[in-house]
């Protein structure tokens, strides 16, 4: 900072090379605005719809008569609609938002022809809408995670292909000489998703493989849609927003490399652990379980990398909404993955498979990790797209606490409940623990249902809490979209003012 040119830069910040970069970023952000806003609004719509489906399904678990005479809302349909609305509606739209915005920024590439991308986004959402409608009218396929009826899936695939190609083009023609770790993950996910989706569609629906191979393909897909699609996007966001908000580099490039490649190598094998104990050759299950054990490597390595970056800056969690969501998600990524590795073990799966334990794990991964990271990303991205501040810190606070506490309660309750359920179903000699007469062993199935009731009611309550959080989020987003842009210098919307205001530190 001692040379002559830098002296003039320090006198007039607008002429500094940093300012040139900022101007470029501003231009890039602006080029992504229309499609990014579209993906955000669709994602927001789908998460509200998906949560309502989830609540209906959850109530039916303990109050079977609830909406019992509505054919469209029977459990089998509404639960499936929930799954597909949050996966293909919320999570994928949020992913597209993050992919486009991050890819444009990190590649230093303007988004060309945003209207074409918008069209692809519209097609994707039309596809999801037709799919959900089909599921509700009873056209769902019987393949879990691929329930969207075959008349809607080609639309999804074509729409995806267009979006994927767009992001790859941005990467290819970007000006950035360096490929940042977030880009590795995004780029990989962009190729992994069409691979798993097309193979799974073909081998389970269009030209079904016979016998257990079909089940293997099904769970290979269902596990990889989390591991090779949502997880990379989630991790890309953590890798970007953590150092971005803190203003310091990611701890170690070497750990990033190890984490990325070990995830790429091992994740794709792990899906078979969903079939432990099933009619699948034992060695295939063993390979899946071994891969699940190996998944500890990327998880721990990535966890260390994030933690070492975060160390010394935990204070920032007190004021930055983005950071709070991102860190909550990153911590839960480590937790859920470590638990997942243990869940794959035969001894553990024996108890927890086909119980609520699995549901807890799914929500832990997709909600407490992925969704929370996406919320954090949106809190950072939206002000840059709209050049406005978030209208209400209180609503952000409500959003964070309701979703964080809600998801943790849900995960905890179902994890414990699932264990209890599994033990009762497996072990015939537990009647005494329920206060039943000796001699009523094995525990009658209806008793297991009765025991589960309290866990299921708690799950519904936690779901209501999460829904409240989503409403707060939705109100904040809509308010922000509608409010006029301030002409003055504005301050960021934080939970509280940091010791040194973020504005001052540029």
């Amino acid at each position, binding site marked *: 900072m001692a040379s002559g040119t830098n002296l003039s830069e320090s006198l*007039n*910040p*607008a*002429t500094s090379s940093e*300012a040139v*970069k*900022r*101007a470029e*970023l*501003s231009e890039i*952000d602006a080029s992504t605005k229309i499609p990014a806003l579209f993906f955000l609004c669709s994602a927001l719509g789908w998460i509200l719809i998906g949560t309502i489906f989830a609540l209906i399904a959850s109530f039916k678990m303990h109050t079977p008569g609830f909406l019992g005479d509505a054919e469209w809302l029977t459990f089998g349909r509404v639960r499936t609609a929930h799954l597909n609305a949050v996966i293909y509606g919320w999570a994928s739209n949020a992913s597209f938002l993050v992919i486009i915005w991050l890819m444009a920024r*990190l590649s230093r590439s303007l988004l060309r022809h945003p209207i074409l991308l918008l069209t692809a986004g519209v097609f994707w959402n039309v596809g999801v809408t037709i799919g959900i409608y089909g599921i509700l009218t009873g056209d769902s396929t019987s393949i879990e995670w691929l329930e969207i009826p075959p008349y809607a899936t080609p639309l999804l695939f074509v729409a995806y292909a267009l979006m994927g190609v767009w992001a790859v083009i941005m990467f290819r023609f970007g000006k950035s000489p360096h490929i*940042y*770790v977030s880009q590795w993950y995004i780029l990989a996910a962009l190729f992994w998703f069409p691979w798993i989706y097309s193979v799974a569609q073909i081998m389970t629906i269009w030209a079904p493989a016979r016998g257990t191979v079909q089940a293997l393909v099904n769970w290979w897909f269902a596990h990889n849609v989390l591991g090779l699609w949502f997880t990379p996007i989630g991790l890309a966001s953590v890798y*970007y927003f953590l*150092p*971005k*908000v803190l*203003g310091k*580099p*990611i*701890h*170690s*490039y*070497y*750990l*990033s490399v190890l984490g990325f490649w070990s995830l790429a190598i091992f994740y794709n094998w792990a899906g078979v652990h969903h079939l432990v104990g099933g*009619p*699948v*050759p*034992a*060695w295939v*299950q*063993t*390979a899946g*379980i*071994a*891969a699940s*054990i*190996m998944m*500890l*490597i990327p998880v*721990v*390595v990535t966890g*260390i990398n994030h933690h*070492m970056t975060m160390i010394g800056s935990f204070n920032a969690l007190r004021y930055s909404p983005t950071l709070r969501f991102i860190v909550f998600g990153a911590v839960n990524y480590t937790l859920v993955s470590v638990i997942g590795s243990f869940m794959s073990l*035969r001894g553990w799966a024996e108890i927890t498979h086909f119980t609520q334990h699995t549901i807890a794990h799914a929500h832990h991964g997709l909600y407490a990790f992925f969704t929370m990271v996406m919320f954090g990303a949106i809190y950072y991205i939206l*002000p*840059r797209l709209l*050049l406005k*501040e978030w209208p209400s810190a209180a609503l952000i606070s409500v959003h964070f606490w309701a979703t964080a506490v809600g998801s943790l309660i849900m995960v905890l309750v179902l994890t414990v409940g699932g264990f209890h359920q599994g033990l009762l179903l497996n072990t015939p000699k537990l009647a005494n623990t329920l206060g039943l007469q000796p001699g009523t062993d094995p525990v009658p199935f209806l008793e297991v249902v009765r025991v589960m009731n309290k866990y299921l009611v708690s799950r519904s309550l936690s779901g209501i809490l999460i829904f409240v959080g989503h409403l707060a989020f939705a109100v904040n987003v809509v308010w922000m979209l509608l409010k006029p842009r301030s*002409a*003055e*210098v*504005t301050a*960021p919307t934080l939970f509280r003012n940091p010791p040194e205001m*973020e*504005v001052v*530190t*540029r």
Partner: protein
Amino acid sequence: MKTPDPREHNTRIEQAGASDESIQDVHAILAREKPEPHEGYSPMPLFVLGFVSAIIFIGAIYIVRHRAGFDPLAYDERYDPSMAATNAAPVKVDPIAEGKKLFMTCAACHQPTGQGVPGVFPPLVKSEWVNGSEDRVIRILLNGLSGPVKVEGNTYNNAMPAFGPGGYGWSDEKISYILTYVRQEWGNTGAPITPEKVAEIRKAVGQRKPWAAEELEAIK
């Protein structure tokens, strides 16, 4: 020489407009954000090396212990092909027990007691056909029998279906079990019949119309 205009190619002068206060205000959100993230190059902690090695070791042990011989037909991870080979003994079949199960089919006519139905279905108990020549009784089973036949002094005129080629298609083993059973049950004293003998006759006769009693009587 012309002195170069200092403003020429000086991009900073063009950017001076960007210092306009109103533009700065609008871009305040962008201006205040931290620089784009980059990686640090801290070396990997030694702990990671040990951890990765340990996990690879555990994963390898797990595969070796639960590989079940990489056998596509082994569904139990405790299956060990080397043990399976030493433990396996030739499967012993009790022809009487197997025959008793198969007799369900015969009992429809000959009755579970083997007594038949007087005037309609001939008895098997003490029957000279059952206890007599192997060659005859195997032929009856394989190809069937129709027309009048004299059993224990009574004449029956009915049709017995073929259980061999062209009929029920039973294997040599099944036919040998059922015959051994009826030849030794209810106080019958016929010798057991081997699958090899059935195969020999099946080969000699092949598929044909049901036998008549006289034709069989011509055979030893």
